[in-house]
């Protein structure tokens, strides 16, 4: 049967790494800290690799029972681990990309003072993410879910001396928590209806229930609530505000958490509970709508951003919108496939932007950049590959996954509108990505960095290839190697047979399509007519991508003055878009201000001050007054006591006589 996969070892290693670095890091030298971090994440990656290699001899899904955690009545939860194709793929992505980013951040964070703290948080994040992926039931997944939120808070707020970083950290955590509330309520409903949170038990419970076509019922509720959780974690429309602000954290953090792994947790969770969504078409519709709208919305904001990391952040939100759009049309495998490829090229783009910022020693505003092609060639070429991949141009991985989603949206989607919006978003995506590329690497250098070095660009001589101080310089090898690897993955990623790999996960559980019209399983789709249309749609999407690239080239290279004119002509529209549709301000005005006002005026003044204080003070006064009255009785005069005595006696006697009479 299955060899012992030591699944529990995989999350445990980063945890020990985090503990060692966190507790003893202060006394270690930077090299030892880096060594410890890389060793533990590396071994985790090797273990995952060992599992992947022995994949052929495995009979998945493989459940590894762990120690029991909760046992109340018949509701049991234990630390069990679950492995199937989906979690294996996620495992590979998380450990692989995670390990690369660890290597990159050694170089990037070398001259930062919180070195050991950064790596212990990074390992901690890895541990929680692995717990989330390998969980056998929703509760352990929820531990990972919260842990990842915590790690993101710690990492975003890494430069805690900067107020904006701390505020961003808090904002991220609170928005996540709002999403988690939905997730929790969904869990409660599951416990109530299915009596357990294990994936198999839940799936079995769902199987007995009829499909809720009418759009109301337990499964729909659970589905929508799960979507709310996913929206919180994966920065979808209502709760995406924290992701752009999360750019306050160091770039490797953005790469790891806000591109490759954490934000994809929502997609993983939705695809993991596809069983529920299959039986709740309305919930699925909601997912699709939210996904599409987020994609379009974020893409439009991306156009007007000037900060290089903000552009990438909005592009992440937009790509996540794509993934949810895929799940929304019940094409979970396409969604996960795009997740994987996105992890590669978005990680690459973020790390690339990191090395650009590193090169320009902290400069993030694209208007200060330009013409860096010659100065940092390696970064330029890797970033170029990433941009082409994300735009979805033919040979690269981006095309394969995005086109798969568009095709599924067209063929299975509830309405053709989703496909149309998808294509429009693709056009805008390729436009702002190429805008970024041209503004940073082409044209002449608009920055002011020519003379002496500013900021923290000095880097350890022993690592980099000894490039002198000052001036724009290429990043050291330690940072470039991960870039090159990711570039390679972005190139070849599309050809990884993810779809066939994931087929058994989604094929066995659901046989009925969400609209019941067309069987969802991919292999059953091989009619020739569809092949034709699919071929045609692929040409449409590549065409759109090339059009976006040409338009960017036209505006930013051929005639650089044009964007300023368009901005002036657009006027109000341009200002709203560049100010992110004032969403933050709206939230602030609609939610935060009234909340503060209510709590200050009503809770603090009204309830606490007026009600509670007065009650206490009044009772104190009352006792004091009665004390005053009684005090006078103790006059010390014997004869007054005698009088009271006689009075008492008289009353008692009267009562007894009265009693006797009746």
């Amino acid at each position, binding site marked *: 049967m299955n060899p012992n996969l030591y699944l529990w070892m995989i999350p445990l290693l980063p945890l020990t790494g985090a503990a060692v670095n966190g507790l003893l890091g202060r006394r270690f030298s930077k090299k030892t800290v880096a060594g410890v971090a890389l060793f533990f994440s590396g071994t985790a990656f090797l273990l995952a690799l060992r599992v992947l290699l022995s994949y052929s001899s495995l009979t998945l899904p493989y459940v590894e029972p762990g120690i029991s955690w909760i046992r109340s009545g018949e509701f049991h939860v234990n630390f069990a681990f679950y492995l199937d194709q989906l979690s294996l793929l996620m495992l590979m992505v998380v450990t692989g990309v995670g390990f690369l980013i660890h290597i990159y951040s050694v170089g990037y964070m070398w001259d930062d003072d919180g070195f050991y703290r950064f790596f212990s948080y990074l390992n901690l994040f890895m541990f929680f993410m692995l717990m989330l992926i390998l969980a056998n039931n929703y509760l352990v997944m929820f531990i990972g879910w919260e842990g990842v939120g915590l790690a993101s808070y710690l990492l975003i707020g890494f430069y805690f001396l900067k107020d904006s970083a701390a505020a961003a950290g808090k904002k991220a955590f609170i928005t996540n928590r709002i999403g988690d509330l939905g997730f929790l309520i969904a869990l409660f409903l599951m416990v109530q209806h299915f009596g357990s949170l294990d994936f198999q038990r839940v799936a079995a419970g769902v199987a007995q229930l009829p499909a809720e076509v009418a759009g109301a019922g337990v499964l729909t509720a659970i589905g929508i609530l799960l979507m709310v959780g996913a929206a919180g974690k994966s920065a979808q429309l209502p709760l995406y505000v924290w992701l752009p602000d999360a750019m306050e954290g160091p770039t490797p953090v953005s790469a790891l958490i806000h591109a490759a792994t954490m934000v994809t947790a929502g997609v993983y969770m939705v695809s993991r509970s596809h069983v529920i969504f299959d039986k709740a078409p309305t919930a699925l519709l909601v997912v699709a709508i939210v996904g599409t709208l987020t994609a379009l919305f974020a893409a439009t904001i991306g156009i007007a951003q000037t900060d290089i990391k903000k552009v990438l952040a909005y592009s992440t939100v937009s790509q996540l919108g794509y993934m949810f759009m895929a799940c929304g049309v019940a094409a979970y495998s396409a969604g996960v496939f795009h997740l994987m490829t996105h992890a590669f090229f978005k990680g690459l783009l973020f790390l690339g932007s990191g090395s650009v910022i590193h090169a320009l020693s902290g400069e993030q505003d694209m208007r200060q950049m330009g013409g860096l092609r010659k100065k940092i060639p390696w970064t330029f070429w890797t970033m170029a590959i990433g941009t082409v991949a994300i735009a979805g141009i033919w040979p690269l991985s981006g095309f394969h996954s995005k086109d798969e989603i568009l095709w599924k949206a067209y063929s299975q989607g509830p309405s053709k509108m989703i496909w149309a919006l998808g294509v429009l978003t693709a056009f805008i995506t390729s436009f702002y990505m190429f805008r970024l590329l041209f503004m940073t690497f082409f044209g002449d250098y608009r920055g002011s960095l020519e003379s002496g070095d500013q900021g923290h660009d000095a880097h350890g001589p022993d690592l980099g290839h000894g490039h002198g101080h000052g001036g724009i310089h290429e990043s050291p090898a330690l940072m470039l190697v991960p870039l090159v690897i990711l570039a390679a993955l972005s190139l070849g990623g599309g050809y990884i047979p993810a779809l066939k790999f994931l087929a058994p996960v989604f094929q066995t559980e659901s046989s009925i399509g969400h609209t019941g019209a067309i069987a969802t399983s991919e292999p059953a789709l091989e009619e020739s007519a569809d092949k034709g249309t699919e071929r045609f749609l692929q040409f449409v999407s590549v065409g759109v991508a090339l059009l976006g690239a040409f338009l960017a080239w036209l505006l930013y290279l051929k005639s650089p003055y044009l964007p300023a004119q368009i901005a002036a002509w657009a006027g109000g529209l341009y200002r709203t878009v560049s100010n992110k549709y004032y969403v933050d301000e709206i939230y602030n005005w609609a939610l935060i201000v009234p909340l503060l006002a209510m709590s200050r005026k009503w809770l603090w003044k009204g309830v606490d001050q007026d009600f509670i204080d007065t009650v206490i003070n009044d009772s104190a006064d009352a006792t004091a007054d009665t004390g005053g009255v009684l005090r006078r009785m103790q006059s*010390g005069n*014997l*004869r007054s006591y005698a009088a009271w005595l*006689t009075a008492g006696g008289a009353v008692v006697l009267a009562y007894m006589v009265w009693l006797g009479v009746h």
Partner: protein
Amino acid sequence: MVPLSYYLVLSAILFACGVLGFLLKRNIITIFMSIELMLNGVNLSFVAFASQWHALSGQIFVFFVMVVAAAEAAVGLAIIISVYRTRDTLNVDRVDLLKL
């Protein structure tokens, strides 16, 4: 033939005089004596009821009341002496503070 109620009225009057003394008198010893008077009133009603119900236990109780009255008188008078020794007055209205 004397109706029992006469005896009880007499004991009631004695008791009332005792209580009056207790209330009106200023001298501690006189107050103490009015208490004895009250006890005597009670003794009389004890004996009266004993003879009414032909139970000697009434009279036995009179002994116990006397014993208690004796004990009380002894201790009470000792206290009065010590009060007089420290306060130099027997007027109850003067003796109203716990400290000297």
